[in-house]
Protein backbone atom coordinates (compact mmCIF):
# COMPACT_ATOMS: atom_id res chain seq x y z
CA UNK A 1 0.00 0.00 0.00
CA UNK A 2 1.31 3.46 -0.90
CA UNK A 3 2.38 5.65 2.03
CA UNK A 4 -0.47 7.78 3.24
CA UNK A 5 -3.09 5.58 1.58
CA UNK A 6 -6.07 4.84 3.74
CA UNK A 7 -6.56 1.18 4.47
CA UNK A 8 -10.02 0.12 3.36
CA UNK A 9 -12.36 -0.78 6.16
CA UNK A 10 -12.21 -4.49 6.92
CA UNK A 11 -15.26 -6.55 6.04
CA UNK A 12 -15.47 -9.95 7.67
CA UNK A 13 -17.65 -12.45 5.81
CA UNK A 14 -16.15 -15.75 6.95
CA UNK A 15 -18.33 -16.43 9.97
CA UNK A 16 -18.53 -20.13 9.11
CA UNK A 17 -14.74 -20.33 9.27
CA UNK A 18 -14.56 -18.57 12.59
CA UNK A 19 -17.12 -16.47 14.42
CA UNK A 20 -16.02 -13.66 16.75
CA UNK A 21 -17.02 -14.50 20.32
CA UNK A 22 -19.97 -12.44 21.56
CA UNK A 23 -18.77 -9.96 24.26
CA UNK A 24 -21.66 -11.09 26.50
CA UNK A 25 -20.29 -14.65 26.28
CA UNK A 26 -16.78 -13.48 27.05
CA UNK A 27 -17.97 -11.54 30.12
CA UNK A 28 -19.55 -14.68 31.62
CA UNK A 29 -16.48 -16.81 30.83
CA UNK A 30 -13.95 -14.52 32.46
CA UNK A 31 -14.46 -15.53 36.14
CA UNK A 32 -14.14 -19.17 35.16
CA UNK A 33 -10.66 -18.48 33.84
CA UNK A 34 -9.56 -16.26 36.69
CA UNK A 35 -11.27 -17.31 39.92
CA UNK A 36 -10.47 -21.01 40.41
CA UNK A 37 -13.94 -22.27 39.54
CA UNK A 38 -12.56 -24.91 37.27
CA UNK A 39 -13.06 -28.54 38.11
CA UNK A 40 -16.61 -29.86 38.56
CA UNK A 41 -15.23 -33.04 40.16
CA UNK A 42 -13.35 -31.16 42.91
CA UNK A 43 -14.65 -31.74 46.46
CA UNK A 44 -14.27 -28.14 47.65
CA UNK A 45 -16.96 -25.48 47.39
CA UNK A 46 -15.49 -24.10 44.17
CA UNK A 47 -15.94 -27.58 42.71
CA UNK A 48 -19.62 -27.52 43.65
CA UNK A 49 -19.96 -24.15 41.96
CA UNK A 50 -18.26 -25.54 38.90
CA UNK A 51 -20.65 -28.52 38.85
CA UNK A 52 -23.67 -26.21 39.03
CA UNK A 53 -22.31 -24.02 36.24
CA UNK A 54 -21.70 -27.08 34.08
CA UNK A 55 -25.24 -28.34 34.67
CA UNK A 56 -26.65 -24.90 33.84
CA UNK A 57 -24.69 -24.85 30.57
CA UNK A 58 -25.98 -28.35 29.77
CA UNK A 59 -29.53 -27.16 30.26
CA UNK A 60 -29.04 -24.13 28.02
CA UNK A 61 -27.53 -26.15 25.16
CA UNK A 62 -30.27 -28.77 25.55
CA UNK A 63 -32.93 -26.05 25.32
CA UNK A 64 -31.44 -24.79 22.06
CA UNK A 65 -31.55 -28.26 20.50
CA UNK A 66 -34.95 -29.09 21.99
CA UNK A 67 -33.95 -32.29 23.80
CA UNK A 68 -33.38 -33.65 27.30
CA UNK A 69 -30.37 -32.13 29.11
CA UNK A 70 -29.15 -35.61 30.05
CA UNK A 71 -28.43 -36.28 26.38
CA UNK A 72 -25.77 -33.58 26.06
CA UNK A 73 -22.15 -34.77 25.89
CA UNK A 74 -19.76 -31.82 25.80
CA UNK A 75 -16.82 -32.19 23.41
CA UNK A 76 -13.97 -30.08 22.06
CA UNK A 77 -15.99 -29.13 19.00
CA UNK A 78 -18.00 -30.46 16.10
CA UNK A 79 -15.27 -32.69 14.67
CA UNK A 80 -15.00 -34.62 17.92
CA UNK A 81 -18.78 -34.81 18.21
CA UNK A 82 -19.06 -36.19 14.67
CA UNK A 83 -16.40 -38.80 15.39
CA UNK A 84 -18.09 -39.77 18.66
CA UNK A 85 -21.49 -40.14 17.00
CA UNK A 86 -20.34 -42.19 14.03
CA UNK A 87 -17.66 -44.36 15.54
CA UNK A 88 -19.51 -44.49 18.85
CA UNK A 89 -22.63 -46.01 17.30
CA UNK A 90 -20.95 -48.17 14.64
CA UNK A 91 -18.37 -49.69 16.98
CA UNK A 92 -21.12 -50.99 19.24
CA UNK A 93 -22.46 -52.99 16.33
CA UNK A 94 -20.98 -56.31 15.25
CA UNK A 95 -17.98 -55.70 12.97
CA UNK A 96 -18.49 -57.22 9.56
CA UNK A 97 -22.24 -56.85 9.91
CA UNK A 98 -22.63 -53.09 10.10
CA UNK A 99 -23.26 -50.41 7.51
CA UNK A 100 -23.28 -46.62 7.77
CA UNK A 101 -25.16 -44.45 5.29
CA UNK A 102 -23.89 -40.94 4.63
CA UNK A 103 -24.48 -38.35 1.94
CA UNK A 104 -21.87 -37.50 -0.68
CA UNK A 105 -21.50 -33.97 0.73
CA UNK A 106 -20.80 -34.64 4.40
CA UNK A 107 -18.13 -32.75 6.32
CA UNK A 108 -14.62 -34.22 6.13
CA UNK A 109 -14.81 -35.21 9.83
CA UNK A 110 -17.82 -37.41 9.02
CA UNK A 111 -16.19 -38.82 5.88
CA UNK A 112 -12.90 -39.64 7.58
CA UNK A 113 -14.58 -41.20 10.63
CA UNK A 114 -16.48 -43.41 8.18
CA UNK A 115 -13.31 -44.21 6.23
CA UNK A 116 -11.67 -45.30 9.46
CA UNK A 117 -14.64 -47.56 10.21
CA UNK A 118 -14.38 -49.00 6.72
CA UNK A 119 -10.91 -50.24 7.62
CA UNK A 120 -12.45 -51.97 10.62
CA UNK A 121 -14.89 -53.84 8.41
CA UNK A 122 -17.90 -51.51 8.50
CA UNK A 123 -19.59 -51.10 5.11
CA UNK A 124 -20.44 -47.63 3.77
CA UNK A 125 -23.18 -46.44 1.46
CA UNK A 126 -22.75 -42.96 0.03
CA UNK A 127 -26.01 -41.34 -1.02
CA UNK A 128 -25.87 -39.00 -4.00
CA UNK A 129 -27.43 -35.53 -3.85
CA UNK A 130 -29.27 -33.53 -6.51
CA UNK A 131 -27.87 -30.47 -8.29
CA UNK A 132 -28.82 -28.30 -5.30
CA UNK A 133 -27.18 -30.68 -2.83
CA UNK A 134 -30.33 -32.24 -1.44
CA UNK A 135 -30.68 -35.85 -0.36
CA UNK A 136 -33.79 -37.58 -1.71
CA UNK A 137 -35.60 -39.23 1.24
CA UNK A 138 -36.97 -41.90 -1.12
CA UNK A 139 -33.45 -42.75 -2.28
CA UNK A 140 -32.49 -43.03 1.36
CA UNK A 141 -35.39 -45.38 2.01
CA UNK A 142 -34.27 -47.56 -0.91
CA UNK A 143 -30.66 -47.60 0.30
CA UNK A 144 -31.47 -48.74 3.84
CA UNK A 145 -30.47 -52.36 4.44
CA UNK A 146 -30.95 -54.74 7.35
CA UNK A 147 -27.33 -54.21 8.45
CA UNK A 148 -27.56 -50.38 8.51
CA UNK A 149 -26.71 -49.17 12.02
CA UNK A 150 -26.56 -45.41 11.41
CA UNK A 151 -27.53 -42.72 8.92
CA UNK A 152 -25.46 -39.53 9.01
CA UNK A 153 -26.68 -36.47 7.13
CA UNK A 154 -25.78 -32.87 7.95
CA UNK A 155 -28.66 -30.43 8.48
CA UNK A 156 -27.03 -27.95 6.12
CA UNK A 157 -23.93 -27.91 3.98
CA UNK A 158 -21.27 -25.38 5.01
CA UNK A 159 -19.97 -25.04 1.47
CA UNK A 160 -23.16 -24.51 -0.52
CA UNK A 161 -25.64 -23.56 2.24
CA UNK A 162 -28.32 -26.07 1.26
CA UNK A 163 -30.63 -27.20 4.07
CA UNK A 164 -31.73 -30.85 3.93
CA UNK A 165 -35.36 -32.02 4.13
CA UNK A 166 -34.59 -33.39 7.59
CA UNK A 167 -38.14 -34.04 8.70
CA UNK A 168 -38.72 -36.32 5.72
CA UNK A 169 -35.32 -37.95 6.19
CA UNK A 170 -36.05 -38.58 9.88
CA UNK A 171 -39.45 -40.06 9.00
CA UNK A 172 -37.64 -42.64 6.86
CA UNK A 173 -35.00 -43.51 9.47
CA UNK A 174 -37.66 -43.66 12.20
CA UNK A 175 -39.78 -46.08 10.19
CA UNK A 176 -36.74 -48.29 9.65
CA UNK A 177 -35.64 -48.06 13.30
CA UNK A 178 -32.18 -46.79 12.35
CA UNK A 179 -30.61 -43.95 14.41
CA UNK A 180 -30.17 -40.66 12.55
CA UNK A 181 -27.09 -38.55 13.22
CA UNK A 182 -27.25 -34.93 12.11
CA UNK A 183 -24.31 -32.54 11.98
CA UNK A 184 -26.13 -29.35 12.98
CA UNK A 185 -23.26 -26.89 12.46
CA UNK A 186 -24.40 -23.78 10.61
CA UNK A 187 -28.05 -24.74 10.96
CA UNK A 188 -28.79 -24.86 14.67
CA UNK A 189 -30.19 -21.56 15.93
CA UNK A 190 -30.74 -20.40 12.35
CA UNK A 191 -33.25 -22.90 10.97
CA UNK A 192 -35.69 -25.14 12.91
CA UNK A 193 -33.73 -28.09 14.27
CA UNK A 194 -35.39 -29.40 17.42
CA UNK A 195 -34.29 -32.99 18.01
CA UNK A 196 -37.73 -34.00 19.28
CA UNK A 197 -39.69 -32.01 16.71
CA UNK A 198 -37.56 -33.41 13.87
CA UNK A 199 -36.92 -36.94 15.11
CA UNK A 200 -33.12 -36.67 15.32
CA UNK A 201 -31.24 -39.24 17.43
CA UNK A 202 -27.76 -37.69 17.56
CA UNK A 203 -27.00 -34.00 16.94
CA UNK A 204 -23.60 -32.37 16.56
CA UNK A 205 -23.17 -28.76 17.68
CA UNK A 206 -20.27 -26.31 17.69
CA UNK A 207 -19.91 -23.54 20.27
CA UNK A 208 -18.06 -21.14 17.99
CA UNK A 209 -20.75 -21.52 15.31
CA UNK A 210 -23.06 -19.77 17.83
CA UNK A 211 -20.57 -16.97 18.69
CA UNK A 212 -19.29 -19.04 21.60
CA UNK A 213 -15.65 -19.88 22.30
CA UNK A 214 -13.67 -22.06 19.89
CA UNK A 215 -12.83 -25.47 21.35
CA UNK A 216 -16.36 -26.05 22.62
CA UNK A 217 -18.98 -28.35 21.16
CA UNK A 218 -21.46 -31.05 22.02
CA UNK A 219 -23.16 -34.17 20.84
CA UNK A 220 -26.77 -34.65 21.88
CA UNK A 221 -27.57 -38.34 22.20
CA UNK A 222 -31.14 -39.57 22.47
CA UNK A 223 -31.69 -41.52 25.69
CA UNK A 224 -31.59 -45.20 24.77
CA UNK A 225 -29.13 -44.79 21.88
CA UNK A 226 -25.96 -46.51 23.06
CA UNK A 227 -22.56 -45.22 22.00
CA UNK A 228 -19.05 -46.47 22.55
CA UNK A 229 -16.83 -43.75 24.12
CA UNK A 230 -13.88 -42.61 22.03
CA UNK A 231 -11.88 -40.85 24.75
CA UNK A 232 -11.24 -42.90 27.86
CA UNK A 233 -10.27 -41.71 31.31
CA UNK A 234 -12.00 -40.61 34.49
CA UNK A 235 -15.57 -41.06 33.29
CA UNK A 236 -16.62 -37.43 32.87
CA UNK A 237 -19.65 -36.63 30.70
CA UNK A 238 -21.41 -39.80 31.75
CA UNK A 239 -18.41 -41.85 30.70
CA UNK A 240 -18.92 -40.87 27.06
CA UNK A 241 -16.15 -38.29 27.00
CA UNK A 242 -13.51 -38.44 29.69
CA UNK A 243 -11.20 -35.60 30.64
CA UNK A 244 -11.63 -32.69 33.03
CA UNK A 245 -14.34 -30.50 31.57
CA UNK A 246 -13.42 -27.34 29.67
CA UNK A 247 -15.50 -25.28 32.07
CA UNK A 248 -14.85 -21.74 30.72
CA UNK A 249 -15.52 -23.00 27.21
CA UNK A 250 -18.61 -24.94 28.21
CA UNK A 251 -20.09 -22.09 30.24
CA UNK A 252 -19.45 -19.77 27.30
CA UNK A 253 -21.07 -22.27 24.94
CA UNK A 254 -24.11 -22.35 27.24
CA UNK A 255 -24.50 -18.57 27.18
CA UNK A 256 -23.97 -18.51 23.42
CA UNK A 257 -26.64 -21.20 22.98
CA UNK A 258 -29.08 -19.23 25.15
CA UNK A 259 -28.45 -16.02 23.16
CA UNK A 260 -28.90 -17.93 19.91
CA UNK A 261 -32.15 -19.47 21.11
CA UNK A 262 -33.57 -16.12 22.16
CA UNK A 263 -32.21 -14.01 19.29
CA UNK A 264 -31.00 -16.34 16.56
CA UNK A 265 -33.95 -18.04 14.97
CA UNK A 266 -36.15 -14.94 14.97
CA UNK A 267 -35.01 -11.42 14.20
CA UNK A 268 -31.33 -12.25 13.75
CA UNK A 269 -31.96 -14.86 11.05
CA UNK A 270 -34.35 -12.49 9.28
CA UNK A 271 -31.94 -9.55 9.50
CA UNK A 272 -29.00 -11.57 8.20
CA UNK A 273 -31.07 -13.20 5.44
CA UNK A 274 -32.12 -9.75 4.22
CA UNK A 275 -28.46 -8.68 4.01
CA UNK A 276 -27.54 -11.96 2.33
CA UNK A 277 -30.31 -11.53 -0.25
CA UNK A 278 -29.03 -8.05 -1.03
CA UNK A 279 -25.51 -9.45 -1.43
CA UNK A 280 -26.77 -12.28 -3.64
CA UNK A 281 -28.78 -9.99 -5.90
CA UNK A 282 -25.92 -7.51 -6.10
CA UNK A 283 -23.25 -10.10 -6.95
CA UNK A 284 -25.45 -11.69 -9.63
CA UNK A 285 -26.25 -8.28 -11.11
CA UNK A 286 -22.68 -6.96 -11.19
CA UNK A 287 -20.57 -10.05 -11.91
CA UNK A 288 -21.20 -11.67 -15.30
CA UNK A 289 -21.00 -15.45 -15.69
CA UNK A 290 -21.62 -16.16 -12.07
CA UNK A 291 -24.18 -18.46 -10.48
CA UNK A 292 -25.32 -19.44 -7.03
CA UNK A 293 -24.42 -22.95 -5.86
CA UNK A 294 -26.82 -24.87 -3.65
CA UNK A 295 -30.48 -24.14 -3.11
CA UNK A 296 -31.90 -20.63 -3.34
CA UNK A 297 -34.92 -21.55 -1.24
CA UNK A 298 -33.83 -24.19 1.28
CA UNK A 299 -30.78 -22.25 2.29
CA UNK A 300 -29.00 -21.15 5.47
CA UNK A 301 -29.98 -17.51 6.12
CA UNK A 302 -26.39 -16.29 6.54
CA UNK A 303 -24.85 -18.13 3.61
CA UNK A 304 -24.04 -17.20 0.02
CA UNK A 305 -21.95 -19.38 -2.26
CA UNK A 306 -21.27 -18.73 -5.92
CA UNK A 307 -19.06 -19.99 -8.71
CA UNK A 308 -17.51 -17.29 -10.85
CA UNK A 309 -16.36 -18.63 -14.20
CA UNK A 310 -12.95 -17.74 -15.55
CA UNK A 311 -11.28 -16.89 -12.25
CA UNK A 312 -9.46 -18.95 -9.66
CA UNK A 313 -10.73 -18.71 -6.12
CA UNK A 314 -7.20 -18.46 -4.68
CA UNK A 315 -6.46 -15.29 -6.65
CA UNK A 316 -9.91 -13.94 -5.90
CA UNK A 317 -9.51 -14.47 -2.15
CA UNK A 318 -6.08 -12.87 -2.18
CA UNK A 319 -7.31 -9.79 -4.04
CA UNK A 320 -10.41 -9.55 -1.88
CA UNK A 321 -8.20 -9.73 1.19
CA UNK A 322 -6.03 -6.91 -0.14
CA UNK A 323 -9.24 -4.94 -0.63
CA UNK A 324 -10.15 -5.63 2.99
CA UNK A 325 -12.70 -8.40 2.47
CA UNK A 326 -12.32 -11.75 4.25
CA UNK A 327 -14.20 -14.56 2.47
CA UNK A 328 -13.49 -18.24 1.76
CA UNK A 329 -13.96 -21.01 -0.77
CA UNK A 330 -16.03 -22.88 1.81
CA UNK A 331 -13.70 -25.87 1.73
CA UNK A 332 -10.49 -25.98 3.77
CA UNK A 333 -9.78 -29.52 2.56
CA UNK A 334 -9.93 -28.64 -1.13
CA UNK A 335 -7.59 -25.71 -0.65
CA UNK A 336 -5.06 -27.99 1.08
CA UNK A 337 -5.11 -30.63 -1.67
CA UNK A 338 -5.71 -28.21 -4.57
CA UNK A 339 -8.34 -30.67 -5.77
CA UNK A 340 -11.94 -29.88 -6.57
CA UNK A 341 -14.09 -30.02 -3.47
CA UNK A 342 -16.09 -33.22 -3.08
CA UNK A 343 -19.21 -31.15 -2.44
CA UNK A 344 -19.00 -29.23 -5.70
CA UNK A 345 -18.23 -32.45 -7.59
CA UNK A 346 -21.26 -34.12 -6.03
CA UNK A 347 -23.59 -31.35 -7.23
CA UNK A 348 -22.20 -31.63 -10.75
CA UNK A 349 -19.87 -28.61 -10.94
CA UNK A 350 -17.17 -28.93 -13.57
CA UNK A 351 -13.55 -28.58 -12.45
CA UNK A 352 -13.32 -25.21 -14.20
CA UNK A 353 -16.42 -23.95 -12.42
CA UNK A 354 -15.32 -25.28 -9.04
CA UNK A 355 -12.03 -23.40 -9.33
CA UNK A 356 -13.98 -20.16 -9.01
CA UNK A 357 -15.97 -21.13 -5.92
CA UNK A 358 -16.52 -18.33 -3.45
CA UNK A 359 -18.34 -18.44 -0.14
CA UNK A 360 -19.56 -15.53 1.99
CA UNK A 361 -20.95 -16.20 5.45
CA UNK A 362 -22.58 -13.33 7.31
CA UNK A 363 -23.14 -12.98 11.02
CA UNK A 364 -24.26 -11.06 14.07
CA UNK A 365 -22.10 -8.01 13.34
CA UNK A 366 -22.50 -7.84 9.57
CA UNK A 367 -23.99 -4.53 8.41
CA UNK A 368 -25.55 -3.18 5.22
CA UNK A 369 -22.38 -1.09 4.81
CA UNK A 370 -20.32 -4.30 4.76
CA UNK A 371 -22.50 -5.73 2.00
CA UNK A 372 -22.27 -2.55 -0.08
CA UNK A 373 -18.49 -2.53 0.36
CA UNK A 374 -18.23 -6.07 -1.05
CA UNK A 375 -20.49 -5.15 -3.95
CA UNK A 376 -18.21 -2.21 -4.74
CA UNK A 377 -14.95 -4.11 -4.41
CA UNK A 378 -15.73 -7.52 -5.95
CA UNK A 379 -16.69 -6.68 -9.59
CA UNK A 380 -13.47 -4.77 -10.48
CA UNK A 381 -11.39 -7.59 -8.97
CA UNK A 382 -13.19 -10.20 -11.10
CA UNK A 383 -12.76 -8.05 -14.23
CA UNK A 384 -9.06 -7.58 -13.54
CA UNK A 385 -8.46 -11.31 -12.97
CA UNK A 386 -10.41 -12.22 -16.09
CA UNK A 387 -8.37 -9.78 -18.13
CA UNK A 388 -5.24 -11.57 -16.88
CA UNK A 389 -6.68 -14.98 -17.79
CA UNK A 390 -7.37 -14.87 -21.54
CA UNK A 391 -9.06 -18.27 -21.46
CA UNK A 392 -12.26 -16.72 -20.22
CA UNK A 393 -14.70 -16.17 -23.05
Amino acid at each position, binding site marked *: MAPGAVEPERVYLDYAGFAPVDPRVLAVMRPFLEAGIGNPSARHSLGAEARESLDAARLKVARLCGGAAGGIVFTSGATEANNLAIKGVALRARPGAARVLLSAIEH*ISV*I*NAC*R*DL*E*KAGVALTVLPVDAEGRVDPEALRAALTADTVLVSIAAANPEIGTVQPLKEIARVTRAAGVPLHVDGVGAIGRVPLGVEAMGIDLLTMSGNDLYGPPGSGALWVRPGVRIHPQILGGGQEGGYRSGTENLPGTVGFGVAAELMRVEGAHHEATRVATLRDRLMAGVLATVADCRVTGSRVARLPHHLSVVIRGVKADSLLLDLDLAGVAASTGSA*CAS*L*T*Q*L*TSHVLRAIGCT*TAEAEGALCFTLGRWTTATDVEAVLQRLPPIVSRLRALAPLHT
Partner: protein
Amino acid sequence: MAQESKLFNADRQIDCTGLFCPMPIVRTREAIRRMAVGQVLEMLSDDPSSDPDMRRWALHMGHDLLQVTRSGAVYRFVVRKTR
Protein backbone atom coordinates in the same frame (compact mmCIF):
# COMPACT_ATOMS: atom_id res chain seq x y z
CA MET B 1 3.49 -57.56 -6.45
CA ALA B 2 7.06 -57.55 -5.14
CA GLN B 3 8.45 -57.89 -8.68
CA GLU B 4 6.19 -55.16 -9.96
CA SER B 5 7.58 -52.72 -7.44
CA LYS B 6 11.07 -53.24 -8.90
CA LEU B 7 9.86 -51.71 -12.16
CA PHE B 8 10.41 -48.26 -10.76
CA ASN B 9 13.23 -47.34 -8.45
CA ALA B 10 11.87 -44.60 -6.27
CA ASP B 11 14.19 -41.74 -5.36
CA ARG B 12 12.10 -41.07 -2.29
CA GLN B 13 9.48 -42.92 -0.28
CA ILE B 14 6.85 -41.60 2.08
CA ASP B 15 4.55 -43.63 4.28
CA CYS B 16 1.12 -42.08 4.75
CA THR B 17 -0.56 -45.15 6.21
CA GLY B 18 -2.86 -44.29 9.08
CA LEU B 19 -3.50 -40.82 7.68
CA PHE B 20 -6.67 -39.59 5.99
CA CYS B 21 -7.54 -37.09 3.27
CA PRO B 22 -6.17 -34.47 2.86
CA MET B 23 -2.89 -35.58 4.48
CA PRO B 24 -1.68 -38.18 1.91
CA ILE B 25 -2.06 -35.58 -0.87
CA VAL B 26 -0.61 -32.79 1.24
CA ARG B 27 2.48 -34.87 2.11
CA THR B 28 2.85 -36.04 -1.49
CA ARG B 29 2.73 -32.45 -2.69
CA GLU B 30 5.36 -31.39 -0.15
CA ALA B 31 7.64 -34.29 -1.07
CA ILE B 32 7.29 -33.65 -4.81
CA ARG B 33 8.00 -29.97 -4.28
CA ARG B 34 11.39 -30.82 -2.76
CA MET B 35 12.34 -33.26 -5.54
CA ALA B 36 13.95 -32.62 -8.91
CA VAL B 37 12.10 -32.95 -12.22
CA GLY B 38 12.36 -36.54 -13.41
CA GLN B 39 12.67 -38.02 -9.93
CA VAL B 40 10.26 -40.69 -8.74
CA LEU B 41 8.30 -40.74 -5.49
CA GLU B 42 6.70 -43.77 -3.89
CA MET B 43 3.78 -43.09 -1.53
CA LEU B 44 1.99 -45.61 0.64
CA SER B 45 -1.52 -44.99 1.93
CA ASP B 46 -4.33 -47.04 3.43
CA ASP B 47 -6.99 -44.34 3.05
CA PRO B 48 -9.41 -45.70 0.41
CA SER B 49 -10.02 -42.20 -0.95
CA SER B 50 -6.32 -41.85 -1.81
CA ASP B 51 -6.85 -43.88 -4.99
CA PRO B 52 -9.25 -41.49 -6.77
CA ASP B 53 -7.58 -38.47 -5.12
CA MET B 54 -4.05 -39.35 -6.28
CA ARG B 55 -5.28 -40.01 -9.83
CA ARG B 56 -7.03 -36.63 -9.95
CA TRP B 57 -4.16 -34.85 -8.26
CA ALA B 58 -1.55 -36.22 -10.68
CA LEU B 59 -3.75 -35.32 -13.64
CA HIS B 60 -4.40 -31.85 -12.23
CA MET B 61 -0.72 -31.18 -11.49
CA GLY B 62 0.55 -32.79 -14.67
CA HIS B 63 2.80 -35.32 -12.93
CA ASP B 64 3.07 -38.91 -14.22
CA LEU B 65 1.33 -41.47 -12.06
CA LEU B 66 3.43 -44.42 -13.18
CA GLN B 67 1.89 -47.16 -11.10
CA VAL B 68 -0.87 -47.87 -8.61
CA THR B 69 -0.81 -51.22 -6.84
CA ARG B 70 -2.64 -52.50 -3.82
CA SER B 71 -1.52 -55.02 -1.29
CA GLY B 72 -4.28 -55.74 1.21
CA ALA B 73 -5.44 -52.40 2.52
CA VAL B 74 -2.31 -50.51 1.48
CA TYR B 75 -2.09 -48.65 -1.82
CA ARG B 76 1.26 -47.91 -3.38
CA PHE B 77 1.51 -44.97 -5.74
CA VAL B 78 4.55 -44.26 -7.91
CA VAL B 79 4.73 -40.71 -9.29
CA ARG B 80 7.33 -39.05 -11.50
CA LYS B 81 7.76 -35.31 -11.13
CA THR B 82 7.44 -33.76 -14.58
CA ARG B 83 7.70 -30.04 -13.98
